């Protein structure tokens, strides 16, 4: 169960917003985490708490294939990203890192910054402020296995022969 506050950044949150180009030479995930969302909200890292979720509208994560963006989000404490739609590479990368990327129609209108959300990955539901229930598009079984393992690294470590 994921529980935290929501941070909504609307449509077209690109990878340069999530981690600006000047930080791309970083290789330490913790260090990347200290600059998460700096391109759109320089105060984000001071506000976000472990467990919080980032919410977006259409085409979340467009841009670079560099995993720096989802790594920065994950290491800033973000536990899931919920958006109306994702750019393909971001979606893959987030899943591979064990950071759930959940597709939910209208979510950027249904959840405001500051709302409390509870996400149930198995049930496929998001409860907003303890009252409203939204459901997200089911995650394909293959990707659920990767998420359940905690990411692709762990998944391959455990299933090297079957991979």
């Amino acid at each position: 169960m994921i529980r935290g506050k929501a941070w909504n950044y609307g449509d077209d949150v690109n990878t340069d917003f999530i981690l600006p180009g000047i930080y791309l030479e970083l290789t330490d995930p913790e260090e990347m985490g200290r600059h998460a969302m700096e391109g759109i909200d320089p105060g984000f890292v001071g506000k976000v708490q472990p467990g919080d979720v980032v919410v977006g509208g259409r085409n979340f994560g467009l841009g670079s294939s560099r995993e720096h963006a989802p790594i920065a989000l994950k290491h800033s404490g973000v536990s899931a990203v919920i958006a109306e739609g994702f750019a393909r590479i971001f979606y893959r990368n987030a899943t591979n890192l064990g950071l759930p990327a959940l597709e939910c129609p209208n979510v950027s209108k249904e959840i405001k910054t500051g709302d409390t959300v509870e996400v149930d990955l198995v049930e496929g539901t998001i409860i907003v402020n303890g009252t409203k229930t939204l459901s997200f598009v089911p995650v394909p079984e293959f990707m659920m296995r990767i998420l359940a393992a905690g990411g692709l690294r762990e998944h391959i470590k455990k299933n090297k022969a079957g991979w």
Partner: protein
Amino acid sequence: MSTVAEKILASHSGLDEAQPGEIVKAEIDFAFMPALTAALAFYAMYDMTIEKVWDRDKVTILLDHIAPATNITNASLHKECREIAREQSLRYFYDINSGVCHQVIPENGHVYPGMLMVGADSHTCTHGAFGAFATGIGSTDMGAAIGTGKLWFKVPETIRVNAEGRLAPRVMSKDVILKTAKELGADGATYCSLEFTGSTIRDMSVGARMTLCNMAIELGAKTGIVEPDDKTSRFLEGRVKHGYTPVYSDADAVYREKLEIDGAALDPQVACPHAVDNVKPVTEVAGKAVNQVFIGSCTNGRLEDLLVAAEIMGGKRVHPDVRVIATPASYEVYEAANSRGIIKTLMDAGAVVCNPSCSVCFGGNHGILAPGEVGLSTSNRNFRGRQGSTESYVYLCSPATAAASALTGAITDPREV
């Protein structure tokens, strides 16, 4: 009844056929990584408790985004990449005297029709111009790919972009793809393969087709594809040292969508800040003053691009209020441009010519824009802050439009100079 993308993914997964939406586990033919992502990919592979790459002939690292190193952090990253390449006994390694990965990889014979290529860079879709299935992946995926030689893929639906008619003089393939971005939108092809067909495309050089496929990702696509033909095989001759089997879409292949572009009627196009699909004909933005013009990148840093610029700028001087930076995409391009006198023509016109690298394109190297400044760029992305200050503005255009604007200091229709 399959498309090129479906056929390549099926054949690499041991299947007769693959349907869109299906998840397949496919064998990789080649994998490459720029320095910025290479170290992370290797950390991922080591984390998976795999010590060596699956095939040292099929994995390479290129030092291209920042080259030569500009500070101690990226110098250390370059050093680490050189060490990894040595420890892993990689057969190919491209140091700072090579160029942008998407130009260097085809020039060195690593791309061929029908192959499955992955790169740890989003513009890996460029290589679809050779009839390959080529897609950009992150470093964890890359760790799995280089460690095991395999990766999972969701088989994409295909959108066909059909362009007919001969492009007018000084209208370029960049204008075709900017127009496509306008029509489909920045998420219009998410998770799809974009297949480019029609007489306009057949007329294009292989380099011009690379420009099209390069920007497929800007529409959200997994890959861009042009079916191979005799131009493709001519380019690959002497570069690819083994046989290959070209793949073509069936006449009755199923497309999610078909977009028609009238190539003959197309005007030069400009993508305005801060989105790649905020595209207008050049006539609507002409007169907008610019501070910097960049001609280069994996989108438009090839010989034919520099040649168009030299034709327009030859014997003239760039406008005194504009800085012009021209960067060949690779050393092969650099040498060819040099021996043809193109470099000298650009320098005589007042352009700064940089060594092959990603240069101004991504705002992490040189040619950074100050707050309030306007850049006109032949690259592929104009997100806020992409080439420097978040208060700067980037417009995207073809090399012809860039060169014409360099002369006037404002966005200019290249047909008018």
